């Protein structure tokens, strides 16, 4: 059995927010006394035993059932699909559903809230059946969605039995169906409300918002103290759910940012680069100790190359000197790292380059991926948002690399030097030209 609840941290945030909200909001004005007797399908008044306060509770509880059920369905959908786009869509679906359903639930008029709940629930089911399942989800993934909205529709319509006559319920169904038939492109149902509908049926149902329909207490205006209490309950309801909504909205924003083409390319290149490094490291890791000493010798050779490279830097033409100035500090820091990473092995065999053909091939691959990565980084660095995401990715990459510090370090140094050597060749050609 799974128990779904808010965390303690969220509760703390809630308490703090409650204090802030309580100090910022003023009570809503007292409801005017209105009495228009509701009519049943046979024309006779037919009161229920439900009061407006009870209806408020029912609607809020339905809101809880709505977003719990939708959240479960969306989460299961996310696990079942391989599509990143659909997963992102599901996250947004959950976020917007929660926000809009809570928005409806905290409205001042319980009957309006009920009618809007009925609208959003039936309309959600219609768009899921008419668009999302055939066009996006497919029948297998979409079937639980259909069932969820069918159940929710039945749920809220049962609550409405105490407020609307059967005729009024039929009119509302027809009104929603007609609206969707006239607006088939409206595939996002979350912001449609009864007030968006027009015509005689809509006006008739809007009147119920004031009369209270079949509710039993419409003949009495609520006292100011009751209004203040009702307002407090609405605020509390919202605040208890606000941390969850805010968290989901934040996660949706992050997910949306990471889906931008530049970020996707950068992440893909990062993954390839890390994968390449891992293969390279695995290869090194299998080498015996004496051959590792040979790698140190190779590093010395690379060090000599590095010195030559530094000389090139100082003799470079003014046209490329600016670029080289940027690279020089990096090379100097690499030199320092090489000194730290050296592990002299007395009596080691001389370095035989022919034993390391595969190693070099892997190093070349690593350098190639590094080059691709750097290219992607340049694009990402062009905008601030991308840069922030990049920092996050680099931190994650760094954490992966840090797990095998020494070998990763060695691999990166080797890869970097290969890249610099290639760079030197290119730079010298530029100078000649």
């Amino acid at each position, binding site marked *: 059995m799974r128990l*779904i*609840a808010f965390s303690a941290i969220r509760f703390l945030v809630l308490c703090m927010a409650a204090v802030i909200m309580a100090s910022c909001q003023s009570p809503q004005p007292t409801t005017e006394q209105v009495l228009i007797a509701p009519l049943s399908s046979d024309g006779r008044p037919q009161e229920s035993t439900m009061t407006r306060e009870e209806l408020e509770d029912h609607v809020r509880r339905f809101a*809880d059932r709505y977003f719990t059920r939708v959240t479960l369905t969306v989460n299961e959908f996310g696990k079942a699909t391989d599509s990143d786009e659909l997963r992102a869509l599901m996250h947004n679906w959950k976020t917007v559903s929660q926000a809009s359903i809570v928005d409806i639930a905290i409205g001042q008029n319980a009957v309006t809230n009920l009618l809007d709940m009925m609208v959003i629930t039936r309309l959600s089911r219609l768009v899921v059946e008419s668009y999302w399942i055939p066009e996006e989800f497919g029948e297998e993934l979409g079937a639980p969605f259909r069932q969820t909205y069918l159940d929710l529709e039945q749920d809220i319509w049962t609550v409405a039995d105490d407020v609307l006559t059967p005729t009024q319920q039929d009119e509302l169904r027809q009104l929603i169906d007609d609206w969707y038939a006239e607006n088939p492109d409206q595939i996002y149902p979350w912001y449609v409300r009864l007030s968006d509908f027009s015509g005689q049926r809509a006006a008739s149902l809007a009147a119920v918002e004031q009369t209270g329909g079949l509710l039993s207490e419409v003949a009495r205006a609520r006292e100011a103290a009751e209004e203040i209490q009702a307002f407090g309950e609405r605020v509390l309801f919202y605040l208890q759910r606000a941390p969850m909504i805010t968290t989901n909205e934040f996660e949706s924003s992050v997910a949306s940012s990471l889906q931008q083409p530049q970020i996707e390319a950068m992440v893909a290149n990062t993954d390839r680069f890390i994968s390449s490094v891992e293969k390279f490291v695995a290869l090194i890791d299998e080498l015996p100790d004496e051959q590792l000493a040979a790698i140190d010798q190779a590093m010395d050779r690379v060090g000599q190359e590095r010195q030559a490279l530094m000389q090139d830097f100082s003799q470079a033409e003014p046209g490329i000197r600016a670029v080289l100035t940027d690279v020089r500090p990096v090379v100097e820091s690499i030199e320092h790292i090489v000194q730290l990473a050296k592990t002299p092995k007395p009596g080691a065999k001389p370095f035989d380059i022919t034993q390391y053909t595969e190693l070099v091939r892997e190093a070349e691959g690593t350098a190639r991926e590094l080059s691709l990565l750097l290219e992607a980084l340049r694009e990402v660095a062009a905008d601030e948002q991308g840069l922030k995401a990049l920092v996050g990715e680099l931190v994650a990459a760094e954490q992966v690399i840090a797990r095998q510090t020494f070998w990763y370090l060695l691999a990166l140094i080797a890869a970097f030097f290969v890249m610099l050597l290639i760079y030197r060749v290119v730079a010298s050609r530029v100078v000649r030209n």
Partner: protein
Amino acid sequence: MIAAQVPVDAERVYESFLRVIAERPDISIVTQKDAAMMLEVSRDDLTLTGQVSSLGAGRSLLYVWADAGDSGLSGRELSEKAVAYICEDLGVSIERVDY
């Protein structure tokens, strides 16, 4: 509000809810709507509402809303206690998930 996903038919969960309440003479039923599988109960200034809905395939969702009054408990703690009682009666274990 606490929502518990229970690997048991909704009808059985609701029956368990009724059974647990029936065993507590200090708790009185305020509202009982069997069609909606909803029960509202109270004890002194404590009120608790539970509702069960079916998820199909032998699974259900148990929702509990509670006002713990001046008992010193939070509404959530009271809800969790109620869920724990019902789960014990049903013989199922609890796994907490934040969402």
